[in-house]
């Protein structure tokens, strides 16, 4: 076990409450509440997250509902269903993905706009 940690919440597991920490996290099960992660969060196709999410980078292949805040990037892949508001520098939505909500990218507008 090195410092490169991978945390997995498996299919049969449900977590209700708050989840926080560093390291990469893969959710294949169910999480309700709050997620705050310093690194990369992946919600796999079998995963369901009903939580406000804060992470550095987020990849969604499954279902997510709640507000999402990512420092670098949010990727909503074609198997994903996402509901909520997203705030991130870069947001990618693939063809086939379902998304309802608002997106706020950190766009620097010119001063005269």
């Amino acid at each position, binding site marked *: 076990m090195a410092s490169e940690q991978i945390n*997995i919440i498996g299919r049969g597991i449900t*977590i209700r409450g708050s989840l*926080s920490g560093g390291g990469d996290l893969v959710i294949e099960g169910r999480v309700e509440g709050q997620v705050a992660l310093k690194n990369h969060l992946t919600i796999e196709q079998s995963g369901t997250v009903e939580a406000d999410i804060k992470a550095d980078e987020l990849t969604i292949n499954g279902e997510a509902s709640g507000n999402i805040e990512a420092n670098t990037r949010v990727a909503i892949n074609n198997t994903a269903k996402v509901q909520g508001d997203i705030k991130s520098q870069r947001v990618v939505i693939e063809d086939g993905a379902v998304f309802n909500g608002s997106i706020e990218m950190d766009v620097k507008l010119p001063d005269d706009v």
Partner: protein
Amino acid sequence: MANTIIGSSIVIDGEISGDEDLVIQGTVKGKISLKESLFVEASGVVEADIDTQNVEIAGRVTGNIAASDKVELKSDCRVVGDIKAPRILIADGASFKGNVDMDVKER
């Protein structure tokens, strides 16, 4: 089957439930109820009531433990709380404070 691992940098405050094995290297506060085995590794800190089939503890646990099969306290673990299970093993070097209730009526 994918094993669930809660790594040493992860903190969970709340309730964990499920029907597969769970490995805790990080911190969990609240409640854990599983139909399978729970492993609290040496780096793991659990402040929760635990209700599972099997528990193996090498880390620190504070809370009441109820297992339908077996509870194993490894050496160097620190456990405070009451344990209820048909089979309880305490290894040499383990620290434990609490009541032990072995349910022997099945035999």
